Structure formats: C-alpha cells, structure tokens
C-alpha cells in the first residue's frame, strides 16, 4: 500500500510537470501580457524596465526554467496584477470555494441517496416518478438561471436568506470559515444548493439505477430468502453495493465542483477562487493561472487517491497492488 502511494505520487509529479508546460506555452500563444498590463502612455524606457521586472524579456524556455526553480522552492511567482505571491492570492480565496464545494457535495449525498433509494424501490409510484422527472430538471436547467431564481424567491420575495457574500466567518486553523457561524451557514445555503443541484440529480439517478439493478441480483433474493427484514436488505445488502459507483462519481464531481464553481460564485458574489481565475485569464496573469491550475491538478490527484483508498474499504475485491 505504501509503495503504491509512492508510485502514484511519482506519476502525479509528471502530470503536474506536463500541465505547467502546457500552460506556459498556451498563455504565450494567447497573447502578450505586456500589451494588457502596461499603460499605453508609458515610454520605451519604462516599458523595458517593467518587462525586465516581470522577467518577460527572457526567452520562454528561460522563463520556464526560472519558474521551475522557484516552484521547487515553493514559490510559484508573483501575480503581475496584484504584485503578490500567486500562492498567497489563491490560498486566501481557497477556503471559500472549498467549503462551498464540500457542502454542495455533502448535500448531494444527503438528498440524492435517499431520493434515489425511494425512486428505485417504488419506480412506478407517483412520488417515484415525480422524483425522476425533477432530476431531469436538475440536470438540464442552467446553473446561473437557477441561481437567479433562487435569489428571486428566497432573497427578494420571501426575504429568508441573504443573497450575496460569505456572511460572518470564524477562525479555524488560521483560516476564516463561514460554516462555523449561523450567519455564514445562512449565506452558504443558496449557493451550495445551487451548486449541488446537478450532483443531486446525478447521485439520485445513479442510486436509483443501482437499486433497480441490485434488486434483481441473486444475492438480494438470497438475503430475502434468509428471512431478513426489508430494512436490513435495503440498507446493508443493497446500499453497500451502491456506494461503490456513488463514491467514484462523487469523488470526480468534488474536483469539478471546485474547479467550476465559477458560475455560482459569480451569481452569489461568493469570494472564491473561481472569480479570481476568470479575472486572471482576462489579463493573462500567468503566475496566478499556473498556480491555480497546479492547485486544481493536485486536488484531482489527491481526490482520486482518496477515492481509490475508499474503494478498498467499500469493495473487498479491490486491493491496491504495486504491480499493474
């Protein structure tokens, strides 16, 4: 297991390296940040000075070498725009996105699995059909529109929930979190629901399909033939089997939820990483883009690792082996 993890980390470092090369070349191809960042009134001498400060006078391969050298020492460069270390910039925004995404994924489990179980056990009942139809909406309605509707109903009409910002925060491990205060939770409710809507539908449908499939399995019939109560059959025999695909999908979805929370963050003015990256791309703020993407890649790698380890707990047939 330990060698297996080491091996995975080694592979991950190559993924990271490849990604940085792609971003460097990519940003270079899109345009020159100098044209955007330096005011048109600046004279030639000033231009040259700023360009030299940002290291943009060097050939690309040398810029990349500087970056790699810095990265090895934990420095991913300074933002061209804010003149702050890119990592610090992203780190400051990350907790907001992280807690939003994690809450959204937790919500999708809390709603998706029970609803899916119900719809799977009563596929022809009225409520079962309503749930399945509703999940189609969850899939297909554009997230920004749902966000606006939520604000319309719960913030404007009913006035129950605040529509923007993180609200009151509390410190934990030196970071500010919203989920620790009641006001923060109230602020998080709508954006988290908005973000989780797609995942709720996904988990719901996955669970339902799993239940339908499992119900026809011999081991479920055998469990019933043993005289077990329906509750035991559903919550032990069926649910444990369903958790395998649900964990896979949720693991992957956690990554994309974090990476693509941009829309929800914009609608609810949630001060997370999504807004930052959009702005950075607009002004070709390369250090921030690179740092952000490295974070995301790292996150995906970590999540996949955790999912693989979770697998071994859920499915006894899976054992992490060093050999391929």
């Amino acid at each position, binding site marked *: 297991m330990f060698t297996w993890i080491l091996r995975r980390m080694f592979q991950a470092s190559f993924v990271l390296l490849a990604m940085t090369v792609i971003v460097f070349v990519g940003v270079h191809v899109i345009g020159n940040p100098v044209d955007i960042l330096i005011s048109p009134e600046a004279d030639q001498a000033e231009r040259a000075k700023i360009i030299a400060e940002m290291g943009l006078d060097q050939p690309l391969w040398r810029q990349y070498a500087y970056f790699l050298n810095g990265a090895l020492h934990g420095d991913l460069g300074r933002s061209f725009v804010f003149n702050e270390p890119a990592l610090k910039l992203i780190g400051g925004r990350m907790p907001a996105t992280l807690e939003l995404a994690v809450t959204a994924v937790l919500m999708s489990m809390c709603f998706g699995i029970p609803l899916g179980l119900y719809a799977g056990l009563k596929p022809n009942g009225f409520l079962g059909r309503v749930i399945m139809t509703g999940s189609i909406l969850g899939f297909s309605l554009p997230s920004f529109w749902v966000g606006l509707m939520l604000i319309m109903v719960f913030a404007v009409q009913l006035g129950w929930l605040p529509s923007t910002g993180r609200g009151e925060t509390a410190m934990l491990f030196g970071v500010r979190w919203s989920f620790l205060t009641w006001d923060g939770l109230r602020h998080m409710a709508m954006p988290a629901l908005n973000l989780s809507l797609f995942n709720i539908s996904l988990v719901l449908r996955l669970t339902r399909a799993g239940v339908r499939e499992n*119900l026809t*399995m*011999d*081991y479920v019939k055998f*469990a019933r033939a*043993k*005289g077990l109560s329906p509750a035991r059959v559903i919550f032990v025999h069926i649910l*444990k*089997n369903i958790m395998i695909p649900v964990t896979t999908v949720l693991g992957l979805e956690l990554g994309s939820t974090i990476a693509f929370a941009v829309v929800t963050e914009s609608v609810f003015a949630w001060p997370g990483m999504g807004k930052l990256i959009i702005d950075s791309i607009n002004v070709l703020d390369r250090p921030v883009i690179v740092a952000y993407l490295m974070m995301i890649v790292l996150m995906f790698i970590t999540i996949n690792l955790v999912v693989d380890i979770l697998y071994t707990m859920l499915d006894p*047939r899976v054992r992490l082996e060093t050999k391929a």
Partner: protein
Amino acid sequence: MSATLEVRNLRTHFFTRAGVVKAVDDVSFSVERGQVLGLVGESGSGKSVTGFSIIGLIDPPGRLTGGSILYQGEDLAKLSERDMRHLRGNRIAMIFQDPMMTLNPVLRIDTQMTEAVHAHVKTTNADARARARDALGMVGIPSPEERLNAYPHQFSGGMRQRVAIAIALLHNPDLLIADEPTTALDVTIQAQILAEVQKLTTDHGTALIWITHDLSVIAGLADRIAVMYAGRVVETGEATDVLDHPVHPYTHGLIGSVPSRNKRGERLRQIPGMTPSLLSLPPGCAFRTRCTHATSVCEQEPPTSEPSPGHTARCFHPIEGNAP
C-alpha cells in the same frame, strides 16, 4: 405421515405488458418429511417460479393467482408478509443455482451468516458466530473459524455453494428448496454437494425439493419426481416408476436425451423444437407441437391417467413399456 408441504393447483402468473405469462399453471404435488422430490423440466418450464412461489419471493409483475401452498396444514399463500418472513430461512430455506451470485460480494461471510441467525433467534453475537462456524464445519469447509472472516470472492464456486447451503441449513429447516444448486459447478464438486445435501437433509428429516433439468442428477436422489412442461406438471410419480416406465412422451424424450454408456455409438435423441412461449400457449396439450404422438385430439385438455398407483400423467396417448 402428513405432508410437510402440499401444493394444490398453484397458479403463478406474470402480468407483463405483452400479456399474461402463465409461468405456473395448475401445479400440484406434495413432499413428506425426509422425502426428496425432484422437480424436472427444461428452462422456462416454471420449476424455479414454483420454488419462489413456495418461499414467497415472487415479485411484481408476478402474482399467485390461485391454489394453495399448505405447509404443515397452513396455507402460505394467505400468510402476511411478516409471518412469511418468520418462516423464510427458518422453517423453509432455499439455495440458488449460481453460487457466484448468491453471496453478497461486499459483505464478509460472518456478516452474512450471523444476520441469518439473528433474523430468527434472539441471541448474542458470540453465539451467532459460533453457530455460523459450526454450520460451516458441517458442510465441510476447512478451518471455519478463519473462513468466517473471508469475503465471498476468496472462495471457489463449490465452496460458495457450501456456504450457501450452510446458511440455508442454519435453522434446520423443515423444507429445503434447492434450485439447480449443482448446475454451475463442475462434475466432481456436483457429486460432493449432492451427497452433502442428501446427508444433511436425511439427518434432520428435512423435506427436499430438488429443482433440476438434469435427470441424471435426480435419478439417484429423488424419492418422487414431478416433470414440468410449460408451467404444468405433465407426469408425476415414484422416481423408479417415472424413470423406468415413463408414460408421457415428454418424459420419454427427456430420458432419451440423457447420454449414457450403453448408448455409446448411437445418435443422442433430442426433443425437436423449443419450449413454447408462455405468452401464447394454445389450448390443449402444450407439448403437442413437438410430440411425435400428437393427433388432433391433443388440442383438447388432456385427461389425467394413472398407469400405476401414485403415478399420473396428463396425456391422450400414454406410452406403454420401458424407458428408452
């Protein structure tokens, strides 16, 4: 001696969109304490559905539409689901065809065994575990204490079927329904399992219904045989009577198609055609389209003849003489 189980005019129909499938249509037989009934027929003849009807595991769109299933004088068809559950796995147990699918892949053997103990007996976990261990030892699983901690995938097919048998016999049931339990196993294991079940059931006076399509399996095992075709029992009687002096042309065909040493060099006889679709059974004898003896009279309901006491067949043209 009164019968452990008496099935009278049982009808189990499946109400599908395409029409009503009469999987079991007017089936009657009885099994006495310590007796073995062989339920023989091709795939789709309704023998498994008969088994599931007895243990009360017919799922929609299937339904028992008529007849009675008398277990020690009590009609199981009229029992509530709750009362039925107390009998299931306790007084009436079942083992399935495919041992690879019978055990839940994500639960340990001890979980799957102790839950079956707890379902019917109020006892401690330690006692349930001890019972499970003893049951495993009884069916010939080496070092049962350690094997309790294993998962199903760590057992071979034959061993899994032994575990399933151990689970089915945990509460010394009065009736065991074995649904082709050796079909998926290789021949040497088949013989072992066969001997094992036979021994265990005679030891406890368990009545056994052995469902199979393989006459050679049943020949040395069954006391009585019921031959099913298209949802009906076409011939029933003492095993020796049915096997040595079959009356119904279908039974004749079945026996004729079993390979044996004295028929070496001859062409194996087969029954022409396939089992008819149960959706559109014509009136009269269902076998007439494949029967070499069929005449126009077979389009009417065949009468029941009794060539010798306790040996009955439903046919207009009973065959006299010995088995092919």
